[in-house]
């Protein structure tokens, strides 16, 4: 049975099958045992009765000068009918000579000694059980051995044995049925902690890297320890990566700022047009690098903080207005008008303020960046927590918005604009962590409409 199981078979199936095999074996054993004990008991009980009858006859044997006197007690024969209606045969002998009874009833050769012995024999073509008692009796002045044989047919024993067999079989079947039921229940209860653990692990979100903490049976503790070890290694690895990016960005940004300052000074001091053009190119390249480093930092922050899930009380109204205002300078530089429409009342929300701000900043930043000078960007918030950012820029040009939210992916029409390809990734990840959704659609008449539906909880 165990050999029939494949490694991929369910534990529950294995457990039930093996428990059933055990139960079946025990049921068969029980049947055999009950039958053996019952048969022995039946034999013993009937033998006792037969023996008692034989002894009762033997007790009444009397010797004397005028031969053996036999007085068969009425009860000796009558009691043989007590256990059933079997036929009965008897014989009393002195030596080889029959005194009375069935002269052809076979006397066992080996029955010597004064005790009571039992034999199986055949008489009149019937199997019989025979009790034999020997008695020394003083007959005609001589001590002689008198043998009393009482035999009984086996119908009552067999009937009782059959009855016992039926009962034993019923008992074994009942035992097996009960065991089957219990094994199903046992399999279920044994597998419950495993199922619970699997369910708990399966229910986790994709970024949930907290250790699994629940009470499990000691057998599952190594598995859970290994799982938690794995999770913590993964988290460590992720956080090292983010730290590296952060450190790298940070370490790059500071020298870049210094480089820019130096270059600007050089630009102011230089009179040569060719040199000034080169220096302007350097400044643009430095800006590009600084921006990329900033966004890498932002992204790393988003990934790290969305795992932490801080709960700040945030007023969206104020946040949207604040972020839009902070971009006013950039917009003015490009001659772009930013229109902000927020409700008068606060729209409260409980989430990581820094993440929301970062996402909003990238969204508005993108809109300004890709708008043509003299264009218009509309930022709006509804009391239901829907943020829309509309521009009249170059649009998506048929690119699937979903691909734009991937890391370091940019549209096909952006070569002249500084960008790292992380902006929309940050927005989309914050939206996901917050529980809301982000949608980018092409606007009629050009431009993009970004709709961020926040989850107000």
């Amino acid at each position, binding site marked *: 049975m165990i050999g029939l199981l494949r490694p991929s078979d369910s534990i529950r199936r294995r457990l039930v099958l093996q428990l059933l095999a055990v139960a079946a074996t025990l049921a068969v054993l029980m049947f055999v045992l009950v039958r053996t004990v019952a048969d022995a008991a039946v034999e013993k009980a009937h033998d006792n009765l037969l023996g008692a009858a034989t002894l009762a006859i033997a007790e009444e044997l009397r010797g004397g000068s005028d031969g053996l*006197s*036999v*007085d*068969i*007690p*009425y*009860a*000796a*024969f*009558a009691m*043989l*009918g007590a256990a059933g*209606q*079997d*036929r*009965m*045969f008897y014989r009393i002998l002195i030596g080889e000579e029959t*005194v*009375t*009874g069935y002269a052809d009833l076979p006397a066992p050769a080996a029955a010597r000694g004064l005790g009571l012995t039992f034999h199986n024999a055949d008489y*009149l073509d*019937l199997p019989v059980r025979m009790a034999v008692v020997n008695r020394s009796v003083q007959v005609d002045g001589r001590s002689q051995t008198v043998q009393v044989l009482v035999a009984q047919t086996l*119908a009552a024993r067999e009937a009782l044995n059959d009855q016992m067999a039926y009962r034993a079989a019923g008992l074994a079947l009942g035992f097996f049925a009960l065991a089957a039921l219990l094994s199903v229940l046992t399999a279920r209860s044994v597998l419950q902690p495993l199922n619970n653990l699997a369910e708990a692990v399966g229910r986790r979100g994709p970024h949930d890297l907290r250790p699994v903490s629940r009470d499990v049976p000691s057998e599952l503790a190594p598995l859970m320890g290994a799982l938690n070890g794995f999770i913590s290694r993964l988290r460590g690895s992720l956080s090292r990566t983010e730290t590296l990016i952060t450190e790298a960005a940070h370490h790059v940004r500071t020298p870049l700022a210094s480089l820019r300052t130096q270059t600007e000074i050089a630009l102011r001091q230089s009179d040569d047009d060719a040199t000034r053009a080169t220096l302007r190119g350097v400044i643009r390249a430095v800006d590009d690098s600084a921006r990329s480093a900033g966004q890498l930092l932002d992204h790393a922050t988003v990934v790290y903080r969305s795992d932490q899930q801080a709960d700040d009380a945030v007023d969206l109204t104020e946040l949207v207005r604040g972020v839009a205002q902070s971009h006013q300078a950039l917009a003015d530089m490009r001659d772009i008008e930013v229109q902000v429409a927020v409700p008068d009342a606060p729209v409260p929300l409980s989430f990581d303020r820094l993440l929301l701000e970062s996402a909003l900043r990238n969204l508005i930043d993108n809109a300004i960046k890709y708008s043509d000078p003299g264009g218009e960007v509309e930022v709006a918030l509804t009391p239901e927590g829907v943020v829309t950012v509309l521009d009249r820029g170059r649009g998506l040009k048929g690119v699937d918005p979903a691909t734009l939210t991937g890391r370091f992916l940019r549209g096909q029409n952006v070569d002249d604009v500084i960008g790292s390809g992380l902006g929309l990734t940050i927005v989309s990840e914050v939206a996901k962590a917050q529980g809301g959704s982000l949608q980018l659609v092409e606007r009629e008449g050009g431009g993009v409409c970004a709709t961020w539906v926040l989850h107000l909880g």
Partner: protein
Amino acid sequence: MRHVGFALGLMIWAGLAAAFEIEEVTVFEGAAGGPALHVLSTTDTEAFAPLIAAFQAANPDVTVHYTVANSQEVYAAVYDEGAAFDLVVSSAMDLQMKLANDGFAVPHRSGETEALPAWARWADQLFAFAQEPVVLIANRDSFDGMPLPETRDDLIRLMREYPERFRGRIGTYDPNLSGAGYLFATQDARQSDTIWRLAEVMGGLEPALFGSSGAMIDGVRSGDLMVAYNVVGSYAAARLGEDGPGVVIEAQDFTHVLLRTALIPRTAEAPRQGAAFLDFLLSEDGQRLIEADTGLPRINEAALAASPHLRPIRLDLGLLVFVDPLMRQRFLAEWTAAVLQP
């Protein structure tokens, strides 16, 4: 129901076809060419005739051969001679039990046999179809002034008090001659030691010993006997009549109830006919007919329950004890010593 006549066959006296002693053979003719049913019985033909007639009314093509013999001869016919009968009916319970135990009967099971009380059948081989109390009968006139005895002790006391009135006027079976007498005496001895006192007292009063109950009953009716001990009640009641001086007394200490039994012998040539007749005897119709027309009391457990002094002779292996020749010899010797005093 159509009328079926029966022809009284030739009465055949002993020794024509069998070595055992036959008293009477009666043939109840059925349709020509029909099956034959051979019954060997200790019961008189007159008693069984109505039963056979009713059986033939339901089975008109069966010809019934009804053979009557005494109980010893019935036993010998089956045990020693293997005579071919389809049903053996006898009042000698001990001999019937011996036949069944020694393998001379074939088992038979049917709704009728299953309906019998457990005490009225043995191992699906031996079946009782009538129960008869074994009673004391007395001549009321002879007891002039004396109370009628109700128990064996009463009888012993009366016999001791008035020995002269009882002398020579007590009748009982001679167990040496009568199988029924032997059965009753051995059952008495088994039941109580009173029987030996009774035998001693009776023995001192010159009892009359009989081989059959008929003469005993006649003796009591005529007044020759004051009492007769151990008489089959159904015969006695029928022959004494309601108004005569003879009364039937069921001893209150205990009264044996004799079971008339039937078995299907192994030698039967038409065991199915034997079984059919047996089932008829045990059926409600058969039992009603037995009670109404044969004078034999039917098997009736309620009657036994209502009369605690009635003790059916147990249909068990104990009956074999006194069939043993040594035991028979021993018992008869003791009985004779007690009753036949010099």
